Structures are given as structure tokens and as C-alpha cells.
């Protein structure tokens, strides 16, 4: 069997490709059993989007243009959310080099969410019941979180694990692009690219070296694993 080296999963968001269509949000929600919360709760900032598109406006009419920036958990290498958790529900994974949310360990202090500069974390304020038979579509690979638990984007770690197991069973290394989180898979504009940053030849590594690269709130030193590629052109991305 091939010698496995730990991967360092990363994501590149090409803002020049991103159209802000939000397909990623739905893909993510249905892959990860993210509940919908209804109008009043969304209005009060309690939607459980693991990924959301930040839309700002630039310029004045008629030169006004929106900028779209999908923001998900940045899977920081030095994650502010991790050390503050008293019960190790937010930990760094050695194998994937991402930030794991251990739902069944979470006691709901919400400290991690306060300390996340990207607001990537969302909280289960209630139990969000699905009427029958809607529970049938829940993804059995992902825990359904109950009330009082923090959750967030995991880079679809269940897909990473599944891919790794498959590769291991077939005695080979994972191919570049074989594992894709749901958002990446759905993204119609192919603005999202996912892969192993520790492999310099992977597509994500190549893109992450682009001159257009930047990280969100880089000055905080969180070492995000998500790289953004600046939009170019008249109005930027």
C-alpha cells in the first residue's frame, strides 16, 4: 500500500469566477444536514449557513456594483476558536489539517463562535424538526446536530474520509480533485477549487500561488487554508 502522507486540505475561491449565485449554500446545507430555520429566525441572524456570500456594494449609481465573497470556515492553521473550547469540541485534525467540530462533545459555550473572526460558526438555537418524510434525505454520513451545539463548515470531512478510505482500499494515493466538498462540486462557475495544499502540483496549490491571492483578515495570523483570488477588471470581483 502506498505510504500515506498527511494532507493539508485547502480551498481556493476565485472571486473573478464567483457570480454570487449561492448554489454553494444549498449544496452545503443538504450535504451536511444543515437545518433551515424559517423567516423570523433568519431575520434575527440565526440562519445556519455554513457558507454564505458576503455581498457589499461598491460605487454609486450608475457605477454601483456588488462584490460577492463566499465565506466559510477558513480552517485556520492557527485557529482562534480551538484553544478557547473548554471541552475539546473544536480541535485541529492532524490528518486533514483542518479544524474539526466535534458535535457530540460540544456543550454549547459558544466561545469559539465569538472568537472566530470570520463568523463561520453557527449555533443550533433550537431543535429544528423536519416534518416527515423529509428526514429521509438526511445524509447518514453527517451527524444531525441537536439544540445547543455549535457547528460549522468541515470541508465536508466525511467526503475526505470516504475518499481516503476508497483510495486506501484500492492501494493508491488520492488523486487531485477526487475529493470535493459539496460546495465545490456544485459551484456552477467553478469558482471553488479544493485539494491538497501540501502537494505543490495540485490544482489548488497552483491557484493558491496566483498573484491574485489573499487571505481573509490575514493580519490576525490565523493562517487560513482558504485562499481568495481577487477579482480583476473594472469593478473587481
Amino acid at each position, binding site marked *: 500500500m502506498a505510504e500515506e502522507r498527511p494532507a493539508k486540505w485547502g480551498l481556493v475561491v476565485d472571486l473573478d469566477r464567483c457570480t454570487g449565485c449561492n448554489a454553494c449554500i444549498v449544496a452545503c446545507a443538504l450535504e451536511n444536514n444543515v437545518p433551515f430555520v424559517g423567516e423570523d429566525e433568519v431575520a434575527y441572524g440565526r440562519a445556519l449557513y455554513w457558507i454564505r456570500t458576503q455581498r457589499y456594494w461598491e460605487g454609486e449609481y450608475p457605477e454601483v456594483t456588488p462584490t460577492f465573497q463566499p465565506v466559510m470556515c477558513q480552517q*485556520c*492553521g*492557527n*485557529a*482562534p476558536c*480551538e*484553544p478557547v*473550547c473548554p471541552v*475539546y469540541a*473544536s*480541535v*485541529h485534525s*492532524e490528518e486533514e489539517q483542518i479544524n474539526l467540530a466535534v458535535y457530540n462533545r460540544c456543550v454549547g459555550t459558544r466561545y469559539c463562535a465569538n472568537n472566530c473572526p470570520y463568523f463561520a460558526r453557527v449555533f443550533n438555537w433550537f431543535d429544528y424538526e423536519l416534518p416527515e418524510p423529509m428526514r429521509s434525505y438526511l445524509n447518514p454520513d453527517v451527524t444531525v446536530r441537536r439544540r445547543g451545539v455549535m457547528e460549522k463548515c468541515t470541508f465536508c470531512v466525511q467526503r475526505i474520509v470516504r475518499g481516503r478510505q476508497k483510495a486506501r482500499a484500492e492501494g493508491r494515493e488520492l488523486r487531485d480533485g477526487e475529493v470535493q466538498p459539496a460546495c465545490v462540486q456544485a459551484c456552477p462557475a467553478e469558482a471553488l477549487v479544493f485539494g491538497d495544499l501540501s502537494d505543490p502540483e495540485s490544482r489548488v496549490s497552483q491557484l493558491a500561488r496566483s498573484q491574485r491571492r489573499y487571505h481573509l483578515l490575514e493580519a490576525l495570523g490565523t*493562517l487560513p487554508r482558504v485562499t481568495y483570488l481577487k477579482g480583476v477588471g473594472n469593478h473587481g470581483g
Partner: protein
Amino acid sequence: MGANVVHLALFKETEIDHAAEAIARLRELGVSDHDISVISGIPYSERILGRPMTWTTIGRIGLAGAVVGFLVAIFLSFGTPLLYPIRVAAMPFQPIPTSIVVIFELTMLGLLISTFIGVFVETISPSFGPRGYHPKISDGHIGILFSSPAQVEESIHATLQALGAEIVHNVEEERLWP
């Protein structure tokens, strides 16, 4: 020497000088310091009453507790991360700065709890000296408990009464604590 009987000489709180004098007299009358004990409603230092220094191990018990707390803290902050190593952020498994907080708290906890335990243990431990009590003590009276051989009883009583003491005989101690 016959059975020693415990007597209590009560002085008003304002008569502290008399009480100190009474202790001196008792000693002169051959009652040893072991057979005297003073009970009072407020603390008087030994110097005031001219009594030998009492001693207590509370300080040492407290120190021992602090050491235990310190060791527990060392285990918790440096030992437990090794039992189940979990990486968080870019922190080492056993960072010293954060451990100092834990060590401080647990050392203090050990110190303070064991000090209390020390007080408690010493309180319920058997003690030497005459035992006896009178509710007037908590009204501020100073009580001198002494046990003396029967033969000197009369002279002691006379001496003490001369100093203004009220003598209470047979201060059988009600069970003050279960």
C-alpha cells in the same frame, strides 16, 4: 492526690486584669498551666493573660494542602494533555503560560481548603486541659477553667473570689458538638 475537679472562674470582660492576675495566682498555688485553660468570648493573646503560647499545625496543614494542589495542577496541566493529545491552534500540548493559571488556582484551592480542614480536624481532635463551658462566655466573660487537687480548693476559691471571680462548680460540659 484525689480526683481533680474542674472549676470555672468567671470574670467580666472588663476585669481582664483580674483574670490575668488570677492565672498568676493559680500558678503560685501549684496549679500547673496544663490544668488551666482559659475560655473567652473574644480572643485574648497569650501575652495578655500571661499564658504559655499555644500551638497549632494549621499553617503546616495548609502548606501541605498547597503542595497537593500544586501537584494536582501539574498533573492536570502537564499530564492530562499527554493522556489524550489533542492539538488546538498552533499551541504546544503543554504550554507553560496557561499552566501557570491552573497551577495558581489549584495551589490556592489546596491551601485554603486544607487550612479549613486543619481547623476542623484540630477542633474535633481531643485536647488536653480541663474541659467545661458556661454560656456566659459568649456574653464576653472570661472563664478560667482549672482543675485542682481537692486539698487546695478552698484557698484557690478564696483567692479567686477576692479577685472578683464568680466560681462555678461542676461545669460539666454539655455535649457541645455531636
